[in-house]
Protein backbone atom coordinates (compact mmCIF):
# COMPACT_ATOMS: atom_id res chain seq x y z
CA UNK A 1 0.00 0.00 0.00
CA UNK A 2 1.46 3.33 -1.06
CA UNK A 3 0.36 6.89 -0.71
CA UNK A 4 -0.86 7.32 -4.29
CA UNK A 5 -3.09 10.15 -5.48
CA UNK A 6 -6.30 8.23 -4.78
CA UNK A 7 -5.30 7.40 -1.21
CA UNK A 8 -4.18 10.95 -0.55
CA UNK A 9 -7.50 12.27 -1.82
CA UNK A 10 -9.33 9.82 0.39
CA UNK A 11 -7.32 10.99 3.40
CA UNK A 12 -8.00 14.62 2.52
CA UNK A 13 -11.72 13.89 2.42
CA UNK A 14 -11.31 12.04 5.71
CA UNK A 15 -9.65 15.04 7.36
CA UNK A 16 -12.39 17.35 6.07
CA UNK A 17 -15.16 15.02 7.26
CA UNK A 18 -13.59 14.60 10.70
CA UNK A 19 -13.19 18.34 10.88
CA UNK A 20 -16.74 19.27 10.02
CA UNK A 21 -18.32 16.50 12.10
CA UNK A 22 -16.31 17.74 15.09
CA UNK A 23 -16.87 21.41 14.40
CA UNK A 24 -20.63 21.13 13.89
CA UNK A 25 -21.12 18.80 16.86
CA UNK A 26 -18.98 21.06 19.07
CA UNK A 27 -20.97 24.10 18.02
CA UNK A 28 -24.32 22.44 18.76
CA UNK A 29 -22.96 20.86 21.96
CA UNK A 30 -21.95 24.31 23.22
CA UNK A 31 -25.24 25.90 22.17
CA UNK A 32 -26.97 23.33 24.39
CA UNK A 33 -24.28 22.63 26.98
CA UNK A 34 -23.17 26.15 27.89
CA UNK A 35 -26.62 27.28 29.09
CA UNK A 36 -27.03 23.97 30.91
CA UNK A 37 -23.69 24.50 32.66
CA UNK A 38 -24.77 28.00 33.67
CA UNK A 39 -28.06 26.65 35.04
CA UNK A 40 -26.19 23.94 36.99
CA UNK A 41 -24.08 26.55 38.77
CA UNK A 42 -26.61 29.35 39.16
CA UNK A 43 -29.46 27.21 40.52
CA UNK A 44 -27.28 25.21 42.90
CA UNK A 45 -27.73 25.55 46.65
CA UNK A 46 -25.74 28.62 47.57
CA UNK A 47 -25.65 29.71 43.92
CA UNK A 48 -26.78 33.15 42.82
CA UNK A 49 -30.32 31.97 42.13
CA UNK A 50 -30.93 28.67 43.96
CA UNK A 51 -33.60 26.37 42.51
CA UNK A 52 -32.47 23.08 44.09
CA UNK A 53 -35.08 20.80 42.46
CA UNK A 54 -34.21 22.00 38.96
CA UNK A 55 -30.52 21.63 39.67
CA UNK A 56 -31.01 18.08 40.90
CA UNK A 57 -33.18 16.94 37.99
CA UNK A 58 -30.80 18.47 35.48
CA UNK A 59 -27.85 16.83 37.20
CA UNK A 60 -29.50 13.41 37.04
CA UNK A 61 -30.42 13.77 33.35
CA UNK A 62 -26.88 14.83 32.50
CA UNK A 63 -25.37 11.92 34.41
CA UNK A 64 -27.79 9.54 32.73
CA UNK A 65 -26.82 10.68 29.24
CA UNK A 66 -23.16 10.64 30.12
CA UNK A 67 -23.26 7.09 31.43
CA UNK A 68 -24.55 5.62 28.14
CA UNK A 69 -21.52 4.34 26.16
CA UNK A 70 -21.13 6.40 23.01
CA UNK A 71 -21.28 3.42 20.67
CA UNK A 72 -24.69 2.47 22.10
CA UNK A 73 -25.89 6.09 21.98
CA UNK A 74 -24.78 6.20 18.37
CA UNK A 75 -27.14 3.38 17.42
CA UNK A 76 -29.99 4.62 19.63
CA UNK A 77 -29.83 8.14 18.20
CA UNK A 78 -29.61 7.27 14.52
CA UNK A 79 -33.40 7.07 14.04
CA UNK A 80 -33.46 10.66 15.28
CA UNK A 81 -30.93 11.56 12.58
CA UNK A 82 -33.27 10.04 10.06
CA UNK A 83 -36.01 12.37 11.25
CA UNK A 84 -33.89 15.52 11.55
CA UNK A 85 -31.44 15.17 8.66
CA UNK A 86 -33.24 12.62 6.52
CA UNK A 87 -30.57 9.95 6.61
CA UNK A 88 -29.04 7.62 9.13
CA UNK A 89 -25.82 6.99 7.28
CA UNK A 90 -22.92 9.21 6.34
CA UNK A 91 -21.07 11.89 8.24
CA UNK A 92 -23.93 14.41 8.61
CA UNK A 93 -26.06 11.77 10.35
CA UNK A 94 -23.36 11.39 13.03
CA UNK A 95 -23.68 15.01 14.10
CA UNK A 96 -26.93 14.28 15.96
CA UNK A 97 -25.66 11.47 18.23
CA UNK A 98 -22.36 13.32 18.68
CA UNK A 99 -24.22 16.41 19.86
CA UNK A 100 -26.39 14.37 22.22
CA UNK A 101 -23.31 12.74 23.70
CA UNK A 102 -21.24 15.90 23.86
CA UNK A 103 -23.77 18.42 25.20
CA UNK A 104 -23.95 16.93 28.74
CA UNK A 105 -20.19 16.55 28.71
CA UNK A 106 -19.83 20.21 27.74
CA UNK A 107 -22.31 21.15 30.49
CA UNK A 108 -20.06 19.49 33.09
CA UNK A 109 -16.89 21.01 31.64
CA UNK A 110 -18.27 24.56 31.71
CA UNK A 111 -19.79 23.92 35.13
CA UNK A 112 -16.37 23.13 36.55
CA UNK A 113 -14.95 26.28 34.93
CA UNK A 114 -17.60 28.40 36.63
CA UNK A 115 -16.98 26.70 39.95
CA UNK A 116 -13.32 27.72 39.84
CA UNK A 117 -14.41 31.33 40.05
CA UNK A 118 -13.83 32.95 43.43
CA UNK A 119 -17.17 33.31 45.24
CA UNK A 120 -15.97 36.64 46.63
CA UNK A 121 -16.07 38.24 43.19
CA UNK A 122 -19.71 37.25 42.77
CA UNK A 123 -20.46 38.52 46.25
CA UNK A 124 -18.85 41.84 45.36
CA UNK A 125 -21.08 42.12 42.29
CA UNK A 126 -24.12 41.35 44.45
CA UNK A 127 -23.05 44.02 46.93
CA UNK A 128 -23.18 46.49 44.04
CA UNK A 129 -26.75 45.53 43.27
CA UNK A 130 -26.08 43.28 40.24
CA UNK A 131 -29.02 41.14 39.11
CA UNK A 132 -28.70 37.43 38.34
CA UNK A 133 -28.49 38.12 34.60
CA UNK A 134 -25.90 40.82 35.08
CA UNK A 135 -23.78 38.49 37.18
CA UNK A 136 -23.98 35.79 34.50
CA UNK A 137 -23.12 38.12 31.61
CA UNK A 138 -20.71 40.49 33.27
CA UNK A 139 -19.00 38.34 35.87
CA UNK A 140 -19.46 34.59 35.42
CA UNK A 141 -18.77 34.37 31.67
CA UNK A 142 -16.00 36.97 31.20
CA UNK A 143 -14.17 36.04 34.40
CA UNK A 144 -14.21 32.33 33.47
CA UNK A 145 -13.12 32.92 29.87
CA UNK A 146 -9.59 31.51 30.12
CA UNK A 147 -10.87 28.40 31.88
CA UNK A 148 -13.77 28.06 29.41
CA UNK A 149 -11.30 28.12 26.49
CA UNK A 150 -9.18 25.39 28.08
CA UNK A 151 -12.35 23.40 28.68
CA UNK A 152 -13.33 23.91 25.04
CA UNK A 153 -10.04 22.37 23.90
CA UNK A 154 -10.77 19.39 26.13
CA UNK A 155 -14.35 19.07 24.89
CA UNK A 156 -13.51 19.45 21.19
CA UNK A 157 -10.71 16.88 21.29
CA UNK A 158 -13.06 14.47 23.06
CA UNK A 159 -15.72 15.07 20.40
CA UNK A 160 -13.10 14.46 17.70
CA UNK A 161 -12.20 11.11 19.21
CA UNK A 162 -15.91 10.21 19.51
CA UNK A 163 -16.36 11.14 15.84
CA UNK A 164 -13.81 8.49 14.96
CA UNK A 165 -16.44 5.88 15.84
CA UNK A 166 -18.63 7.12 13.00
CA UNK A 167 -17.11 4.41 10.83
CA UNK A 168 -19.20 1.80 12.63
CA UNK A 169 -22.45 3.30 11.36
CA UNK A 170 -21.47 4.28 7.86
CA UNK A 171 -20.13 7.70 8.70
CA UNK A 172 -16.91 9.08 7.30
CA UNK A 173 -13.80 10.77 8.58
CA UNK A 174 -10.35 9.58 9.56
CA UNK A 175 -11.71 7.18 12.14
CA UNK A 176 -13.81 5.46 9.50
CA UNK A 177 -10.76 5.09 7.25
CA UNK A 178 -8.79 3.58 10.10
CA UNK A 179 -11.58 1.12 10.84
CA UNK A 180 -12.57 0.24 7.28
CA UNK A 181 -9.11 -0.08 5.78
CA UNK A 182 -6.98 -0.85 8.74
CA UNK A 183 -9.26 -3.10 10.74
CA UNK A 184 -11.68 -4.70 8.27
CA UNK A 185 -9.28 -4.93 5.30
CA UNK A 186 -6.14 -5.51 7.24
CA UNK A 187 -4.11 -2.61 5.90
CA UNK A 188 -2.20 -1.43 8.96
CA UNK A 189 -0.31 1.24 7.00
CA UNK A 190 -3.43 3.21 6.20
CA UNK A 191 -4.71 2.68 9.73
CA UNK A 192 -1.56 4.18 11.18
CA UNK A 193 -1.60 7.10 8.77
CA UNK A 194 -5.19 7.90 9.84
CA UNK A 195 -4.30 7.59 13.50
CA UNK A 196 -1.30 9.89 13.10
CA UNK A 197 -3.50 12.44 11.32
CA UNK A 198 -6.00 12.26 14.19
CA UNK A 199 -3.19 12.75 16.69
CA UNK A 200 -2.01 15.82 14.77
CA UNK A 201 -5.55 17.24 14.78
CA UNK A 202 -5.83 16.72 18.53
CA UNK A 203 -2.46 18.41 19.05
CA UNK A 204 -3.50 21.40 16.97
CA UNK A 205 -6.83 21.83 18.79
CA UNK A 206 -5.20 21.47 22.22
CA UNK A 207 -2.41 23.87 21.42
CA UNK A 208 -4.84 26.42 19.99
CA UNK A 209 -6.96 26.15 23.14
CA UNK A 210 -3.93 26.59 25.39
CA UNK A 211 -2.74 29.63 23.50
CA UNK A 212 -6.12 31.32 23.30
CA UNK A 213 -6.64 30.72 27.00
CA UNK A 214 -3.25 32.09 27.94
CA UNK A 215 -3.61 35.11 25.71
CA UNK A 216 -7.03 35.98 27.13
CA UNK A 217 -5.99 35.57 30.76
CA UNK A 218 -5.18 38.87 32.43
CA UNK A 219 -4.11 37.20 35.66
CA UNK A 220 -0.75 36.16 34.19
CA UNK A 221 1.66 38.97 33.54
Amino acid at each position, binding site marked *: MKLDAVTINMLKTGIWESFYMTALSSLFAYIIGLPLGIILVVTDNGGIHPIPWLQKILGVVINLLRSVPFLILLFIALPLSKIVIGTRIGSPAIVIPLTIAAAPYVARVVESSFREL*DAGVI*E*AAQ*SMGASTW*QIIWKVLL*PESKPSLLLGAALAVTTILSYSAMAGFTGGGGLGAIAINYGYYRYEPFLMWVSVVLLVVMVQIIQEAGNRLSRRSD*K*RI*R
Partner: protein
Amino acid sequence: METPIIRIKDLGKEFKTANGPVRALQDINLEVSAGEIFGIIGLSGAGKSTLVRCINYLEVPTEGDVFFEGQSMAAMTDAQRRMIRRSMGMIFQQFNLLAQRNVIRNVCFPLELTGVPKKEARQRAMELLKTVGLEDRAQAYPAQLSGGQKQRVAIARALATNPKVLLCDEATSALDPNTTKQILELLKEINQKLGVTVIVITHEMAVIEAICDRVAIIDQSRIAEVGAVSELFLNPRSAIGRKLIMGEAGEQAAGGDGSARNIRIIFDGRESTEPIISNMVLACSAPVNIMYAATRDIQGKAMGQMVVQLPEDADGAERVIDYLESIKIPYEEVNSYEA
Protein backbone atom coordinates in the same frame (compact mmCIF):
# COMPACT_ATOMS: atom_id res chain seq x y z
CA MET B 1 -32.72 62.90 67.50
CA GLU B 2 -32.35 62.38 63.77
CA THR B 3 -32.97 59.01 62.18
CA PRO B 4 -29.87 56.82 62.26
CA ILE B 5 -28.67 55.95 58.76
CA ILE B 6 -28.65 52.31 59.75
CA ARG B 7 -30.68 50.78 62.52
CA ILE B 8 -30.40 47.10 63.28
CA LYS B 9 -33.33 45.83 65.29
CA ASP B 10 -33.52 42.51 67.17
CA LEU B 11 -31.55 40.91 64.41
CA GLY B 12 -30.69 37.22 64.46
CA LYS B 13 -29.26 34.75 61.99
CA GLU B 14 -29.23 30.99 62.12
CA PHE B 15 -27.54 28.86 59.49
CA LYS B 16 -28.89 25.46 58.66
CA THR B 17 -26.05 23.03 58.28
CA ALA B 18 -25.77 19.27 57.89
CA ASN B 19 -24.98 19.08 61.62
CA GLY B 20 -28.07 21.03 62.62
CA PRO B 21 -28.67 24.74 63.03
CA VAL B 22 -25.77 27.04 63.88
CA ARG B 23 -26.48 30.33 65.57
CA ALA B 24 -24.41 33.15 64.04
CA LEU B 25 -26.15 36.23 65.45
CA GLN B 26 -28.59 36.85 68.27
CA ASP B 27 -30.45 39.89 69.59
CA ILE B 28 -28.39 42.43 67.69
CA ASN B 29 -29.51 46.03 68.22
CA LEU B 30 -27.36 48.80 66.83
CA GLU B 31 -27.73 52.31 65.52
CA VAL B 32 -25.20 53.93 63.23
CA SER B 33 -25.44 57.69 62.79
CA ALA B 34 -24.86 59.40 59.47
CA GLY B 35 -21.29 60.60 59.08
CA GLU B 36 -19.62 58.53 61.75
CA ILE B 37 -17.02 55.81 61.49
CA PHE B 38 -18.48 52.88 63.32
CA GLY B 39 -16.41 49.85 64.23
CA ILE B 40 -17.57 46.31 64.79
CA ILE B 41 -14.89 44.18 66.41
CA GLY B 42 -14.83 40.57 67.45
CA LEU B 43 -12.67 37.50 67.38
CA SER B 44 -12.91 35.18 64.40
CA GLY B 45 -16.14 33.24 64.46
CA ALA B 46 -17.91 35.86 66.56
CA GLY B 47 -20.36 36.59 63.74
CA LYS B 48 -19.13 39.98 62.58
CA SER B 49 -18.83 39.06 58.90
CA THR B 50 -22.36 37.68 58.96
CA LEU B 51 -23.53 40.88 60.62
CA VAL B 52 -22.05 43.13 57.95
CA ARG B 53 -23.66 40.96 55.25
CA CYS B 54 -27.00 41.30 56.99
CA ILE B 55 -26.69 45.08 56.78
CA ASN B 56 -26.90 45.01 52.96
CA TYR B 57 -28.93 41.79 52.93
CA LEU B 58 -26.30 39.69 51.19
CA GLU B 59 -27.31 37.42 54.05
CA VAL B 60 -30.98 37.45 54.87
CA PRO B 61 -31.45 37.59 58.65
CA THR B 62 -33.67 34.90 60.15
CA GLU B 63 -35.01 37.32 62.76
CA GLY B 64 -35.34 41.07 63.09
CA ASP B 65 -34.84 43.81 60.57
CA VAL B 66 -32.43 46.39 59.24
CA PHE B 67 -33.59 49.93 58.54
CA PHE B 68 -31.68 52.00 56.02
CA GLU B 69 -32.62 55.66 56.49
CA GLY B 70 -35.75 54.46 58.20
CA GLN B 71 -36.81 52.05 55.44
CA SER B 72 -37.27 48.43 56.44
CA MET B 73 -35.04 46.13 54.37
CA ALA B 74 -37.10 43.11 55.41
CA ALA B 75 -40.17 44.60 53.77
CA MET B 76 -38.41 45.19 50.45
CA THR B 77 -38.49 43.11 47.29
CA ASP B 78 -35.23 41.76 45.88
CA ALA B 79 -35.22 44.49 43.25
CA GLN B 80 -35.65 47.19 45.89
CA ARG B 81 -32.80 45.72 47.92
CA ARG B 82 -30.57 45.81 44.86
CA MET B 83 -31.35 49.52 44.54
CA ILE B 84 -30.55 50.11 48.22
CA ARG B 85 -27.24 48.27 47.82
CA ARG B 86 -26.14 50.99 45.43
CA SER B 87 -26.30 53.33 48.41
CA MET B 88 -24.05 50.98 50.37
CA GLY B 89 -20.61 50.34 48.94
CA MET B 90 -18.67 47.37 50.23
CA ILE B 91 -15.00 46.42 50.31
CA PHE B 92 -13.52 43.07 51.26
CA GLN B 93 -10.46 41.45 52.80
CA GLN B 94 -9.56 39.77 49.51
CA PHE B 95 -10.43 42.88 47.45
CA ASN B 96 -12.61 40.84 45.05
CA LEU B 97 -11.67 42.74 41.93
CA LEU B 98 -12.62 41.37 38.53
CA ALA B 99 -9.34 39.78 37.43
CA GLN B 100 -10.13 39.95 33.70
CA ARG B 101 -10.90 43.68 33.75
CA ASN B 102 -8.36 46.44 34.07
CA VAL B 103 -8.47 49.01 36.84
CA ILE B 104 -10.66 51.59 35.12
CA ARG B 105 -13.15 48.99 33.92
CA ASN B 106 -13.35 47.61 37.45
CA VAL B 107 -14.27 51.04 38.73
CA CYS B 108 -16.76 51.45 35.88
CA PHE B 109 -18.40 48.11 36.70
CA PRO B 110 -21.06 49.32 39.21
CA LEU B 111 -21.89 52.21 36.87
CA GLU B 112 -22.29 49.75 34.00
CA LEU B 113 -24.79 47.85 36.15
CA THR B 114 -26.91 50.96 36.56
CA GLY B 115 -26.72 51.84 32.87
CA VAL B 116 -24.58 54.98 33.12
CA PRO B 117 -23.30 55.91 29.61
CA LYS B 118 -19.78 54.63 29.01
CA LYS B 119 -18.14 58.02 28.55
CA GLU B 120 -19.70 59.44 31.69
CA ALA B 121 -18.73 56.30 33.64
CA ARG B 122 -15.10 56.56 32.51
CA GLN B 123 -14.97 60.19 33.58
CA ARG B 124 -16.36 59.40 36.99
CA ALA B 125 -13.99 56.43 37.33
CA MET B 126 -10.98 58.63 36.57
CA GLU B 127 -12.09 61.12 39.23
CA LEU B 128 -12.37 58.30 41.76
CA LEU B 129 -8.97 56.88 40.81
CA LYS B 130 -7.56 60.35 41.49
CA THR B 131 -9.23 60.33 44.90
CA VAL B 132 -7.51 57.06 45.79
CA GLY B 133 -4.23 58.08 44.13
CA LEU B 134 -4.14 55.54 41.33
CA GLU B 135 -4.94 57.57 38.21
CA ASP B 136 -1.67 56.45 36.60
CA ARG B 137 -2.59 52.75 36.91
CA ALA B 138 -5.95 52.98 35.13
CA GLN B 139 -4.93 50.53 32.39
CA ALA B 140 -3.24 48.00 34.69
CA TYR B 141 -4.84 44.67 35.56
CA PRO B 142 -5.37 43.63 39.19
CA ALA B 143 -2.63 40.97 38.93
CA GLN B 144 -0.13 43.78 38.33
CA LEU B 145 -1.04 45.66 41.51
CA SER B 146 0.09 45.35 45.12
CA GLY B 147 -2.41 44.50 47.85
CA GLY B 148 -2.73 48.11 48.95
CA GLN B 149 -3.31 49.25 45.37
CA LYS B 150 -5.94 46.57 44.86
CA GLN B 151 -7.80 47.77 47.94
CA ARG B 152 -7.62 51.34 46.64
CA VAL B 153 -9.21 50.21 43.40
CA ALA B 154 -11.87 48.36 45.40
CA ILE B 155 -12.55 51.53 47.39
CA ALA B 156 -12.85 53.59 44.20
CA ARG B 157 -15.22 50.96 42.80
CA ALA B 158 -17.32 50.95 45.97
CA LEU B 159 -17.61 54.74 45.82
CA ALA B 160 -18.61 54.87 42.15
CA THR B 161 -22.34 54.96 42.79
CA ASN B 162 -22.00 57.73 45.40
CA PRO B 163 -23.01 55.52 48.32
CA LYS B 164 -24.00 56.96 51.68
CA VAL B 165 -22.44 54.07 53.56
CA LEU B 166 -19.21 52.17 53.02
CA LEU B 167 -19.07 48.68 54.55
CA CYS B 168 -15.52 47.45 55.14
CA ASP B 169 -15.23 43.74 55.84
CA GLU B 170 -11.75 43.14 57.27
CA ALA B 171 -10.52 45.53 54.61
CA THR B 172 -6.98 45.74 55.98
CA SER B 173 -6.51 42.22 57.31
CA ALA B 174 -4.60 41.04 54.24
CA LEU B 175 -2.30 44.06 54.24
CA ASP B 176 1.01 44.80 55.97
CA PRO B 177 1.01 47.36 58.85
CA ASN B 178 2.28 50.22 56.74
CA THR B 179 -0.26 49.70 53.96
CA THR B 180 -2.96 49.20 56.58
CA LYS B 181 -2.18 52.64 57.94
CA GLN B 182 -2.44 54.23 54.51
CA ILE B 183 -5.73 52.53 53.71
CA LEU B 184 -7.17 53.57 57.09
CA GLU B 185 -6.10 57.16 56.43
CA LEU B 186 -7.82 56.99 53.06
CA LEU B 187 -11.03 55.70 54.67
CA LYS B 188 -10.91 58.52 57.19
CA GLU B 189 -10.37 61.04 54.41
CA ILE B 190 -13.34 59.66 52.49
CA ASN B 191 -15.45 59.90 55.63
CA GLN B 192 -14.47 63.52 56.23
CA LYS B 193 -14.39 64.84 52.67
CA LEU B 194 -17.30 62.96 51.14
CA GLY B 195 -19.35 62.56 54.29
CA VAL B 196 -19.68 58.82 53.73
CA THR B 197 -20.65 56.84 56.81
CA VAL B 198 -18.08 54.08 57.27
CA ILE B 199 -18.70 50.77 59.01
CA VAL B 200 -15.52 48.90 59.77
CA ILE B 201 -15.48 45.20 60.58
CA THR B 202 -12.22 43.99 62.06
CA HIS B 203 -10.58 41.70 64.59
CA GLU B 204 -7.79 44.19 65.20
CA MET B 205 -8.19 46.72 68.00
CA ALA B 206 -5.55 48.94 66.36
CA VAL B 207 -7.89 49.49 63.39
CA ILE B 208 -10.71 50.57 65.70
CA GLU B 209 -8.40 52.84 67.67
CA ALA B 210 -7.03 54.46 64.54
CA ILE B 211 -10.24 55.60 62.87
CA CYS B 212 -13.46 54.68 64.66
CA ASP B 213 -15.66 57.08 66.60
CA ARG B 214 -17.76 54.37 68.18
CA VAL B 215 -17.40 50.64 68.42
CA ALA B 216 -19.56 47.60 69.02
CA ILE B 217 -17.91 44.50 70.40
CA ILE B 218 -19.45 41.30 69.22
CA ASP B 219 -18.79 38.09 71.08
CA GLN B 220 -20.38 34.70 70.67
CA SER B 221 -23.07 35.99 68.33
CA ARG B 222 -24.14 38.83 70.63
CA ILE B 223 -23.21 42.46 71.17
CA ALA B 224 -21.08 42.56 74.31
CA GLU B 225 -20.89 46.34 74.51
CA VAL B 226 -21.27 49.49 72.42
CA GLY B 227 -19.78 52.91 73.03
CA ALA B 228 -17.26 55.58 72.12
CA VAL B 229 -13.81 54.14 71.51
CA SER B 230 -12.17 56.36 74.15
CA GLU B 231 -14.85 55.30 76.62
CA LEU B 232 -14.16 51.65 75.91
CA PHE B 233 -10.46 52.23 76.47
CA LEU B 234 -11.01 53.96 79.80
CA ASN B 235 -13.64 51.64 81.08
CA PRO B 236 -14.29 48.38 79.29
CA ARG B 237 -17.41 46.81 80.75
CA SER B 238 -17.16 43.33 79.27
CA ALA B 239 -14.53 40.63 79.59
CA ILE B 240 -14.10 40.54 75.83
CA GLY B 241 -13.73 44.35 75.79
CA ARG B 242 -10.89 44.16 78.29
CA LYS B 243 -9.27 41.36 76.36
CA LEU B 244 -9.34 43.41 73.17
CA ILE B 245 -8.08 46.57 74.89
CA MET B 246 -5.22 44.97 76.73
CA GLY B 247 -4.16 42.45 74.17
CA GLU B 248 -2.75 39.08 75.03
CA ALA B 249 0.36 40.25 76.87
CA GLY B 250 -1.64 42.65 79.02
CA GLU B 251 -4.18 40.01 79.81
CA GLN B 252 -1.56 37.55 80.91
CA ALA B 253 0.06 40.17 83.11
CA ALA B 254 -3.28 41.11 84.64
CA GLY B 255 -4.07 37.50 85.32
CA GLY B 256 -0.94 37.17 87.44
CA ASP B 257 -0.63 34.26 89.82
CA GLY B 258 -3.57 35.34 91.94
CA SER B 259 -1.47 36.13 95.00
CA ALA B 260 -1.63 39.91 94.60
CA ARG B 261 -4.08 42.51 93.31
CA ASN B 262 -3.49 44.00 89.90
CA ILE B 263 -4.80 47.35 88.72
CA ARG B 264 -4.85 48.86 85.26
CA ILE B 265 -3.96 52.56 85.18
CA ILE B 266 -5.01 54.61 82.17
CA PHE B 267 -3.11 57.68 80.98
CA ASP B 268 -4.94 59.91 78.55
CA GLY B 269 -2.08 62.19 77.62
CA ARG B 270 -2.46 64.96 80.18
CA GLU B 271 0.04 63.44 82.56
CA SER B 272 2.88 63.10 80.12
CA THR B 273 5.06 65.58 82.00
CA GLU B 274 4.36 64.12 85.41
CA PRO B 275 6.21 61.02 86.58
CA ILE B 276 3.12 59.41 88.06
CA ILE B 277 4.49 56.00 88.98
CA SER B 278 7.62 57.43 90.63
CA ASN B 279 5.57 59.94 92.58
CA MET B 280 3.15 57.24 93.61
CA VAL B 281 5.90 54.97 94.87
CA LEU B 282 7.50 57.84 96.81
CA ALA B 283 4.22 59.13 98.23
CA CYS B 284 2.95 55.73 99.31
CA SER B 285 6.38 54.37 100.23
CA ALA B 286 5.19 51.12 98.79
CA PRO B 287 6.83 49.14 95.98
CA VAL B 288 4.73 48.28 92.93
CA ASN B 289 5.56 45.83 90.23
CA ILE B 290 4.95 46.94 86.64
CA MET B 291 3.49 43.95 84.83
CA TYR B 292 2.63 45.50 81.48
CA ALA B 293 2.74 48.87 79.82
CA ALA B 294 1.76 50.09 76.38
CA THR B 295 0.82 53.23 74.54
CA ARG B 296 -2.06 53.30 72.08
CA ASP B 297 -2.80 55.85 69.45
CA ILE B 298 -6.53 56.45 69.68
CA GLN B 299 -7.72 58.77 66.95
CA GLY B 300 -4.43 60.60 67.01
CA LYS B 301 -4.39 60.95 70.80
CA ALA B 302 -1.76 58.99 72.71
CA MET B 303 -3.34 56.91 75.44
CA GLY B 304 -1.28 54.75 77.73
CA GLN B 305 -2.15 51.88 79.95
CA MET B 306 -0.18 50.04 82.56
CA VAL B 307 -0.89 47.01 84.67
CA VAL B 308 0.78 47.21 88.05
CA GLN B 309 0.79 44.73 90.88
CA LEU B 310 -0.15 46.31 94.20
CA PRO B 311 1.96 45.74 97.30
CA GLU B 312 1.08 42.46 98.98
CA ASP B 313 0.23 44.04 102.33
CA ALA B 314 -3.31 45.40 102.42
CA ASP B 315 -2.19 48.72 103.93
CA GLY B 316 0.23 49.47 101.14
CA ALA B 317 -2.35 48.51 98.55
CA GLU B 318 -4.89 50.88 100.10
CA ARG B 319 -2.39 53.74 100.09
CA VAL B 320 -1.73 53.27 96.38
CA ILE B 321 -5.47 53.23 95.59
CA ASP B 322 -6.03 56.34 97.70
CA TYR B 323 -3.16 58.08 95.96
CA LEU B 324 -4.59 57.34 92.52
CA GLU B 325 -7.98 58.59 93.67
CA SER B 326 -6.45 61.79 95.01
CA ILE B 327 -4.68 62.69 91.76
CA LYS B 328 -7.71 61.60 89.69
CA ILE B 329 -5.98 59.09 87.50
CA PRO B 330 -8.43 56.56 86.05
CA TYR B 331 -7.75 53.01 87.10
CA GLU B 332 -9.53 49.73 87.49
CA GLU B 333 -8.87 46.53 89.28
CA VAL B 334 -8.32 43.70 86.84
CA ASN B 335 -8.00 40.46 88.81
CA SER B 336 -11.70 40.14 89.23
CA TYR B 337 -12.27 40.14 85.50
CA GLU B 338 -11.05 36.63 85.05
CA ALA B 339 -13.71 35.41 82.69
